[in-house]
């Protein structure tokens, strides 16, 4: 009996201890400051942040923003890009994070800028992509792909004398997890900038987070806006290195109009809310070009499972010659497997690793045309002869795949921008290099120019599925 009383007392003491500790430590403002040193200072003070009221309607006091903030902010941010008011978001010692954005304004003389992740010897950058999870890509593909260009450029002496160091994180194809790994990259690993590898929701989520902590973020173009969260273009640190879905819509319409003149076509877009804007744009554009020949324009479920036969039947019953498709690739495979007719699929480059789709969707997918920011294996050696040897060298001779090309391309592009950022590289100078309107041509991606907007793509490569070889081939380069 006594023992039990004692154990109860011990528990009581413990919980009291817990509460005191919580009360004590919780409030202690310096905790994080003490242990999160370095130039970044993201977590702790966040003095500038409360100046963004209205992000959460009616909750002006919720300074909870510090770690989250910008993500919900975009609506408020447009003007701020240049005003320096956002500097607080990154808390980078008031360098006026927008110094670069403003171009001529420079750094305002308050020091070298934010040099997190940059030392005299190395530049540390991060990249996230799905390896496990629902729409997993082969783990090895990304592991092999990441760092190929970095080791290539490092063997050539690096970027302005600095070695490029690339950290890779698996985002599990989950926006929530993507945000967590980006937080890890930005705040714990303290990388200089982050690259989004694949997956539009993951890219969206991470881009908004990166913006909130002032970390530059580069990815392939995805959607432009998302209801409730606002346009990606208003993120101060976000840069899309290829055309967005919306920007690709006219290209797709041209392709449809030129190949299917007088025939009926359909449009199927996933019901993801991020694709609302693309759906509207594409539908309007197709209606304008083909008029009544647009037989149907519908949304399909995000994950097409038991619905696949119904969608297949709808396509075949409508008698269309072509379907513009922008939904999950695995869904496309499932639908083609239930189809009794053959139609041509076309669409924007929605994701890396198209060859997986080709392997799954053939033969129904024959001649499907998709846009892409990078060429396929058939053309890469002509466009960039360094790729294949570098890939084989890093990966013990294994054969390159299209994910390898995609990552090579984006690493190469980032390296060019880093080089343009100058010897005194900082996040400001990095972003200034992009904002300056300089055209970057890495020979893999179509030319990129961020002078006009954050969506820096100028063209796309056009791919065609070849079911003879079960892969996509590069049909045309630099379609505008």
């Amino acid at each position: 009996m006594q023992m039990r009383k004692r154990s109860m007392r011990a528990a009581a003491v413990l919980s009291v201890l817990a509460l005191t500790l919580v009360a004590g430590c919780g409030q202690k403002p310096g905790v994080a400051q003490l242990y999160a040193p370095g130039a970044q200072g993201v977590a702790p003070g966040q003095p500038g942040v409360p100046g963004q009221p209205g992000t959460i309607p009616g909750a002006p006091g919720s300074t909870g923003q510090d770690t989250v903030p910008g993500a919900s902010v975009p609506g408020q941010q447009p003007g701020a890009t240049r005003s320096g008011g956002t500097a607080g978001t990154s808390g980078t010692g008031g360098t006026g994070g927008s110094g670069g954005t403003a171009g001529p304004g420079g750094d305002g003389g308050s020091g070298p800028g934010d040099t997190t992740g940059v030392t005299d010897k190395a530049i540390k950058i991060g990249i996230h992509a799905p390896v496990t999870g629902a729409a997993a890509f082969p783990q090895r593909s990304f592991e092999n792909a990441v760092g190929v260009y970095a080791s290539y450029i490092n063997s050539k002496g690096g970027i302005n004398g600095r070695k490029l160091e690339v950290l890779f994180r698996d985002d599990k194809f989950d926006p929530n997890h993507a945000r967590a790994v980006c937080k890890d990259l930005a705040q714990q690993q303290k990388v200089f900038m982050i690259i989004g590898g694949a997956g539009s929701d993951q890219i969206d989520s991470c881009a908004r987070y990166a913006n909130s902590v002032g970390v530059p973020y580069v990815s392939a173009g995805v959607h432009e806006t998302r209801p409730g969260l606002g346009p990606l273009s208003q993120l101060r640190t976000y840069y899309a290195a290829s055309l967005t879905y919306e920007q690709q819509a006219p290209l797709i319409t041209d392709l449809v109009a030129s190949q299917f003149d007088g025939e009926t076509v359909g449009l199927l877009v996933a019901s993801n809310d991020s694709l609302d804007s693309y759906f509207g744009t594409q539908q309007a554009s197709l209606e304008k070009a083909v008029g009544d020949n647009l037989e149907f324009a519908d949304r399909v479920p995000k994950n097409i499972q038991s619905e696949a036969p119904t969608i297949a039947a709808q396509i075949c019953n409508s008698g269309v010659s072509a379907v513009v498709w922008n939904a999950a690739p695995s869904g496309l495979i499932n639908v083609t497997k239930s189809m009794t007719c053959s139609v041509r699929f076309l669409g924007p480059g929605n994701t890396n690793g198209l060859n997986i789709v080709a392997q799954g969707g053939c033969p129904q997918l024959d001649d499907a045309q998709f846009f892409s920011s990078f060429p396929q294996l058939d053309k890469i050696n002509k466009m960039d002869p360094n790729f294949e040897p570098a890939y084989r060298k890093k990966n013990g001779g294994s054969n390159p795949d299209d994910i390898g090309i995609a990552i090579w391309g984006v690493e190469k592009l980032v390296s060019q921008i880093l080089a343009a950022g100058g010897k005194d590289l900082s996040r400001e100078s990095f972003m200034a290099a992009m904002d300056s309107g300089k055209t970057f041509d890495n020979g893999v991606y179509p030319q990129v120019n961020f002078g006009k907007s954050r969506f820096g793509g100028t063209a796309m490569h056009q791919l065609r599925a070849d079911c003879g070889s079960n892969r996509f081939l590069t049909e045309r380069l630099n379609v505008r």
Partner: protein
Amino acid sequence: MTDTIPEAPEESTRELPPVVAEQIDDEVEDAAPFRPSVRGWVARGLVWALLAWVVFALPGNFLSPFQLGVSDVGHASKAAIFAIIGLSLNVLIGYTGTISLGHQAFVGVGAFVSAYVVVDMGLEFWVAVPIAAAVGGIQAALLGAVSLRLTGLYFALVTLAYGLFAEETLFGITAFTGGEGGKNVPRPLGFEDDFAFYYLCLAFLAAVLWVDWRLMRSKGGRALQALRENPRVASSYGINVKAYTLMAFVVSGIFASIGGALLAQQSTFIVPETFNFQLALIFILMTVVGGLRNRVGVVIGSVVFALLEEGTLVHLLHLDGILDSTIGLPAEFFGLVIGPILLLLTITLYPGGIGQQVAPIAQWLRGKKLDLHAGKVTEVEVNDVRA
């Protein structure tokens, strides 16, 4: 939590027979009264201090040789939240013997309601948590009222269907969840920082532990124990089986919602697809592996699984290289493959779970003799006679 106290004044609890495991200890105690020596007390004190250091100081980087970063402490917060969810499930599986295969829906409802209150209604987190808890409780009450007339396995099936329904249909309502792009959830004032937030989670965990502990000592708790052992006998003693099961269900729903609300705050961002069926299965794994009806065990089990899921545990123990090179198991898949195998080993070899394995240490820490056979449970299985 306040209304349970009048029900269970301290005097009455002392006299009542407590949980089975402790009863055994009482007998041992009577046979050979044991008092640790001074050295024994010092040793115990040191271990207590070490434990307190790991839980309280280490994640906050106090008196610590390690420099934990924000995402390390983020994992720690997540572990604390998982422990809350594990306790919630323990109320259901452990105390009532009914199983919920849709617990991801309960947690998700808590998360989204809290996020909705904070973001869309613009109220404080401190208001959002009670609201989320209330909604979670009501939801559990509704589902329970409709389906608790079904027996064990059928009930499990209904929760499974409910989980999938919530996942696909409820969480698909954009106005409520913010769509698949998710929603940003700002943390409460004073806890924006990851380190501070960890202590907030810890406080909630302590509160849930306390409520759980008091509740089990109350009339309702004793009734639950009785009806788990045998509902028919219990009802013949005048225990309203359905009412008490429903009560447990509601308590579980409330705990789960609190866990969900914290989860939303922890990642400061929630998306519907987080709350999938796999998550529900992980919740069950961690509770059963932890050891049903054993709070310490459930907490440890939940922490282990929370860290397994992130791969953190593997990194902490520097196992990634070894596993990858020996059996070609990459760290990403560690939780997926090892977790279920742990579960199978637990239920076949150690039905008492981690709680059983750590029982000797727990006993020793409470000032008893180190008895390797302490906590040995011959039959811990849930006796759902109704199934």
